[in-house]
């Protein structure tokens, strides 16, 4: 991933040889799916696939902010559950199509508060983020159950489900274009821009790389760290909107997504404990995860085998990245 070149500094790192292995992985997996199931090559095939992956991809992109800043966010799944079950369906939405326009901002508001609390607890109470967000995860799941009484209390109106469910049809060239895919492109771009094209993104890398050095260089470490948790929580809400739109609500809709998001980022080459990570590669990581499931499904492998494959890929990806870095370093 690091280049060794004598060229002048203008040459960008990302374009140089060592392609991030995750891209190779994704292409290989998609090809394999295509070979096994040619229908995948048609717009409905791959668009359905992208639609399916949109929520996880956006979520992972947000989770990457926290990972790059040197922390973990285990509360994203429960944030999805909370905002979706409680606010989206239970308290407000019950079948009123017009409510969507203010419910989504309200959900984002709650996400903001959750992210702020996570960030404040980690920054000022100095609770390690693993524990802080674990506590938050348990708490939010409890709150979701408490307020909803254990089951969703209402339906999501179609206007709400638009983002995760609706396909725009008769689009030239590709036939159908799911709204979720548009969301993926839009939010993916925003996340990419924030991480890789702004001063903020560079500061985020710096605090994950070496918080002490960042502090002494004048980086507002606490503020940047808190904002990373906020971004993560907000993307969790967005991912929740898409996921809820796709499948409708259930009380455990977000469970397990926290680890999947971290997994996607790690497969995308992000460094746990901070300092390194790429939004496009993380999105590719999410694609790879989903593609693995789809492929194993096609092959007809049993669920347990999928777990084993996922475990091996996870360890393998990190071991490979470590090996590559070490070789570049010595």
């Amino acid at each position, binding site marked *: 991933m690091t280049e060794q070149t004598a060229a002048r500094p203008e040459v960008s790192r990302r374009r140089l040889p060592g392609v991030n292995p995750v891209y190779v992985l994704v292409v290989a997996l998609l090809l394999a799916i295509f070979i096994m199931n040619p229908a995948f090559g048609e717009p409905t095939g791959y668009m359905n696939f992208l639609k*399916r992956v949109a929520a996880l991809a956006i979520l992972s992109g947000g989770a990457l902010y926290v990972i790059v800043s040197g922390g973990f966010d285990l509360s994203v799944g429960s944030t999805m559950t909370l905002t979706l079950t409680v606010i989206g369906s239970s308290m407000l939405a019950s079948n009123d199509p017009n409510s969507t326009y203010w419910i989504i901002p309200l959900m984002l508001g709650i996400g903001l508060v959750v992210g702020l609390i996570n960030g404040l607890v980690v920054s000022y109470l100095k609770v390690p983020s693993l524990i802080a967000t674990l506590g938050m995860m348990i708490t939010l799941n409890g709150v979701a159950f408490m307020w909803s009484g254990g*089951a969703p*209390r209402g*339906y999501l109106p179609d206007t709400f489900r638009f983002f995760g*469910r609706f396909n725009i049809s008769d689009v030239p060239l590709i036939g159908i274009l799911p709204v979720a895919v548009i969301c993926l492109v839009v939010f993916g771009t925003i996340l990419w821009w924030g991480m890789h094209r702004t001063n903020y993104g560079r500061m985020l890398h710096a605090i994950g790389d070496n918080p002490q050095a960042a502090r002494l260089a004048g980086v507002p470490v606490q503020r940047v760290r808190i904002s990373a948790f906020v971004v993560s929580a907000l993307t969790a809400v967005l991912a929740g909107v898409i996921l809820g739109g796709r*499948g409708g609500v259930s009380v455990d809709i977000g469970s397990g997504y926290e680890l999947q998001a971290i997994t996607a980022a790690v497969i995308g080459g992000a460094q746990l404990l901070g300092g390194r990570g790429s939004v496009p590669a993380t999105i590719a990581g999410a694609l790879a995860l989903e593609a693995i499931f*789809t492929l194993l499904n096609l092959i007809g492998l049993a*669920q347990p085998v999928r777990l084993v494959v996922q475990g091996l890929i996870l*360890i393998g990806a990190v071991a490979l990245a470590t090996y590559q870095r070490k070789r570049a370093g010595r």
Partner: protein
Amino acid sequence: MKKTLLAVAILGMLTGSAFAQAPNFDDPAEFAKQREQLTATFNGPADQPYLQYAGDAMVDTTEFKKEGPWTVCFSNAGVNNPWRVVGYTNMTEEVKLHPEIGTFTHVDAEGSDDKQIADIDDLLAGGNCDALIVSPNSTAALTPAVEKACAAGLPVIVFDRGVTTDCPVTFVHPVGGYGFGIQAADHIIANVPAGGNVLMLRILPGVDVLETRASGARNMFAEAGLTVLGEEFTDGDNAKTKSIVEDYLQRGTIDAVWMDAGATAVAAVEAFEDQGVDIPVVTGEDQQDYLQKWRDLGFKGIAPTYPSYQWRTAVIAAVNTLKGEQVPGPEWVLPQPAITQDVLDQYINEKMPPLHYAMCGCEDMETYPEAWGGTK
């Protein structure tokens, strides 16, 4: 990497070498018994299914007769899914109907066997219980704890999943998993010509009530000459359910979707809807969202049930026991009706939450529907 593979190999050897037969979920005798019970007539008042029972066997409970007010303790496996939420509401509302119950102590094991055993220990150590109701998280694991409670002289009522001891006063449960599977499979066989493709969607492997639902249906499809495209586990996740159905649709036609539980039935229906494909036969359960979807889209549906009114029955059994009255036992088998097209409308109530289980037997209570999250 090599080491990891080695680990897998070793683990494989260790587990594989000691391969033992999993519990038997394909029991023809039980299957036949349940098939019969589905259509049998039940004793008890016709409009109160939660008081009905199959057979005539009764248990004498005079030894437990006690003056009120009583403390009734309930060790719950968990309220971790909507069915249990509805059931638990049934139960608390039923408790309110019995002034003799002075204290109702509820401890929640949050879905953990280990914790539920500890909870029962806690109740025995300091709970002052006059009767103990147990909804076991799993059958074998909770048996010692239940035995311990029996040995302490408490009348124990078990419901939903059973235990492998007959020391409880009675075990309250509906007909059972085979029955559920039979109702759904019968409906599919009746509506899909031989040679049709059936997709079986499952929640989780290993849960006894769900395994029996599947094994019965699987055999029936084979007999009827239907092709089972696959048996897929959805983890009760709507999004995943949708993905699975989409993937199968890409590869061919589906004539029917059989489900072992209704939680994700709507997602399966939507997958067809979103692909612009005609909705085939899709079986579900008595959740409001499925019933309404079924009515609105007019596909050929059926909703076998696993009635949540058994939670009421458990309380009633405890009360009767403490009164010293006879209760049906050692098993109190409740009827397990399926909701069919003819009776669909009477179970739909749009004022109820989407995952309300219509077969709750709770409409006659005063606090209905608010206590269940509905509106008048």
